[in-house]
């Protein structure tokens, strides 16, 4: 086994364990911390693939900003341990079966398309950040500007939703 493969399996195990922990934890703050483990492991995988810019953005935006937002809301609402109400009929064993079937189907389908991709040249080192900046500001400049508009609308929406109505 080569070194990248070992690193991959360690990080993949970390990500899967974090995701399982997210499901098993009863308290939302523990779930949030598990999700941070998943995100950091994924950032490590991006680094392993040579996508260093995406890895940095993953840590800063996902692991930092979004998860801080989650933790804030959990503490703001004083969310306690999840109470157990009756599951709907579909969410019992049939739901589990459907989830496993979905995972197998997705994995089989994209792994099959991945096999044809494999033959394409696997160039190792791309100058990732420079190339991304060129693509974002040349080929994808209109979508990029649209995302700033999207963020603006999201800020307005969050403010309107969360403000207290005046009595």
């Amino acid at each position, binding site marked *: 086994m080569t070194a990248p493969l070992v690193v991959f399996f360690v990080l993949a195990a970390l990500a899967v364990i974090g995701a399982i922990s997210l499901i098993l934890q009863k308290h939302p703050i523990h779930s949030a911390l598990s999700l941070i483990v998943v995100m950091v492991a994924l950032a490590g995988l991006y680094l392993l693939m040579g*996508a260093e810019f995406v890895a940095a953005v993953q840590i800063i935006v996902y692991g930092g900003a979004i998860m801080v937002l989650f933790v804030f809301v959990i503490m703001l609402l004083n969310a306690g341990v999840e109470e157990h109400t*009756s599951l709907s009929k579909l969410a019992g064993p049939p739901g589990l079966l459907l989830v496993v079937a979905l995972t197998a189907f997705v994995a089989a389908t994209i792994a099959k398309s991945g096999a044809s991709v494999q033959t*394409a040249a696997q160039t190792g080192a791309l100058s990732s950040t420079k190339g991304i900046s060129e693509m974002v500001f040349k080929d994808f400049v209109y979508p990029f500007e649209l995302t700033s508009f999207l963020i603006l609308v999201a800020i307005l929406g969050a403010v309107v939703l969360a403000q207290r109505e005046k009595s």
Partner: protein
Amino acid sequence: MVPTNYYVILSAILFGLGVFAFIFKRNVITIFMSIELMLNAVNLAFVAFSQALGKLDGQVFVLFVIVVAAAEAAVGLGVIILIARNRQTLNVERVDLLKL
């Protein structure tokens, strides 16, 4: 080099765990976190294929996905605060106004 298939299968497993959490969890905040988990799984597939094809389009799309996820988190958590304020619960089973 790690084969692309490994990344893609890991991405599918993470997506499946996200769907599982989405179905089985009761707390609306945890359900929201499972959506983020699914988005992360898709991002992993994007980067893996971008790397396999030697093109950067996939990584640019990951940036857009992250931007949309941030916007979605802001609005979604606003909605959650509204639910908690109006119904005094975070359990999705108790938010059933539209249920017959």
